[in-house]
């Protein structure tokens, strides 16, 4: 029962977030290009890399996300080049924490962090309502 529960807006949110951070860096490099022309070249290279990252890697990374709930556990598979599987039995769960940035809130999303002793599993931005439902479910089950 593998499924990607992440809404498509999550991919857009990641693209905006990383795009903005990259853009600031490119603008900074351009602004300081009066020091050396090499900075302009670096800015151009960064722009190409950023475009590649935003429009090729991120969609694939988003697609690779598989979140499933086999009996009594959460399993998250992700990764394009390096595949990672994270398994956390609910019995080890200590508490759940949801958090949202202003941009994520505007898009109706919230991220979820599931904390166990010495480890944590982070579920990227889901629909805020789903996050609340998930936390309520865990609270009712007495798992978090």
């Amino acid at each position, binding site marked *: 029962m593998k499924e990607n529960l992440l809404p498509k807006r999550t991919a857009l949110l990641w693209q905006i977030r990383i795009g903005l951070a990259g853009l600031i860096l490119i603008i900074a490099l351009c602004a300081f290009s009066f020091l050396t022309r090499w900075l302009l070249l670096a800015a151009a290279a960064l722009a190409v890399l950023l475009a590649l990252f935003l429009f090729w890697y991120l969609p694939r990374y988003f697609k690779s996300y598989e979140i499933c709930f086999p009996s009594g556990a959460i399993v998250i598979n992700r990764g394009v080049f390096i595949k990672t599987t994270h398994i956390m039995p609910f019995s080890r*769960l*200590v*508490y*759940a*924490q*949801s*958090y*949202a*940035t*202003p941009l994520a*809130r505007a898009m109706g999303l919230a991220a979820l962090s599931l*904390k*166990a*002793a*010495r480890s*944590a599993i982070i579920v990227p931005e889901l629909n805020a309502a789903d996050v609340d439902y998930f*936390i309520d479910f*865990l*609270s009712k089950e*007495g*798992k*978090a």
Partner: protein
Amino acid sequence: MKREFRAHPIMIVNLIKPFLFVLVFPLLKGVIQYFTKGEITGVLTLELIAFAVITLFAALRCSSFRLICGESTVTIKIGIILRSKSVISISKLSSVQTVQNPADAVFRAVTYRINTEAGPKGSADFEFKLSLKDSREVSRRLFGDKNPTAVKFSVFKVAVMAATTSSAVTGMIIGVPIINKAGKLLGLALDKMLYDEINNVSEKVVTYFPPIVNTITLIFLLAYAVSFFYSLFKYINFKLYLEKDKLEVRSGFFVRSRTSFKKESVKDVIIDQTPLMRLFKRYAMKVSVGGYGNSKSESAVIVPSGRRGEIKRQFSIYFPFLEPDGKLLHAKRDNRTKNRFLYFPKLYFIILLVLSTVLSLIFKSFNRLILFLTVVICCVIFYYAYLCIFEFRFGKLKMGKNVYAQTVKGFNTCELYCPRENVGQIKLIRNIPDIPRKTCKVVVSVCSESADSIKVRHLNYEEVKKSIAECYGVEV
């Protein structure tokens, strides 16, 4: 029924603290302006604006705080820009701690700490300020309001514990930053004044040993005194409140602290004895609670000081479910094994003798200092040898429903009790001499944030393997 609690306004101060560094930027601007234009303008205005902004954010963040106590969960909401909501099942709480410093007492507030096993090491998972009234209500909702039995420990017992657990090193760690900060605040070289005074006093004491020995001894004694008073004021007013499934420890003089935890949150219980406690035939009982406290050891003192019988009696009352069972494992009680236990003390003693002889031949003018250091290290080695003999005679391990181990840890002797399911790891170590003698060293680590571990040496390898198989069903 759910109930919502808000933070005490004094929490604004706590929220401002991490952002005070922002106030440095207007100063930097002033410095740059001074070097470029030769004048400084608008620094104070900028400082005021920066302070107003961080205070505003702190106030908004403080007002956004909500603690919601439900029937089986606690929900904590905080944040204006980055909003977070945490839901914790009450059954998963390790401990709850309230601390009231003098400033809190003036505003009738307390620092409330909620600890779970999942939090960052060395700090509470959630820390906030509540009014005293609200904090009592929250604690009542989390742990119920049954009438507890209070056990009060006399100041003498607390003083004995403070005296026997204090050390000069702890005193230095506590004292030196205080002296430095106070000196900077008063604009005085306090450390130099103190050092001169120590020098003056130590020069007046004439002994066979050089004056540096007196100075060092005096520094160590002063540091020990600092550590003693720190420990005494930390644990004075020590009271233990007992309920059927909950324990609450209250202590402190200037800073009052209350720590509550369920007995089931206890990872392990340690009965330990420091060298000074050994002299006075006293023991202390501590418990390790997952995720508790901001100290490295995450342990809470339950009984500060008591004789062996008294401690054992109290252990049976508080933790009857931790009584040890299973087959007793210990090292062979013969001369050969005794010599193995004493191998390192003998080796260290020989090295010390050789080293001190060589040094005294090379540096003849430092003979008295070398003699002093040799005597001190010799005493330490003899004590180590004594502990090795203790380990030989009393070192043991029991693995059943609960795991029990008695051995030596550093310079302390200790006994560890823990349920077998709380054991995170059992390590069997076999050195070259262990293989022909079919013995091994067993290291039991308790599963917790900063795990307690205990080592029992020279046990029979086959018996240990059999015990592990019986206890955990794991064939080694």
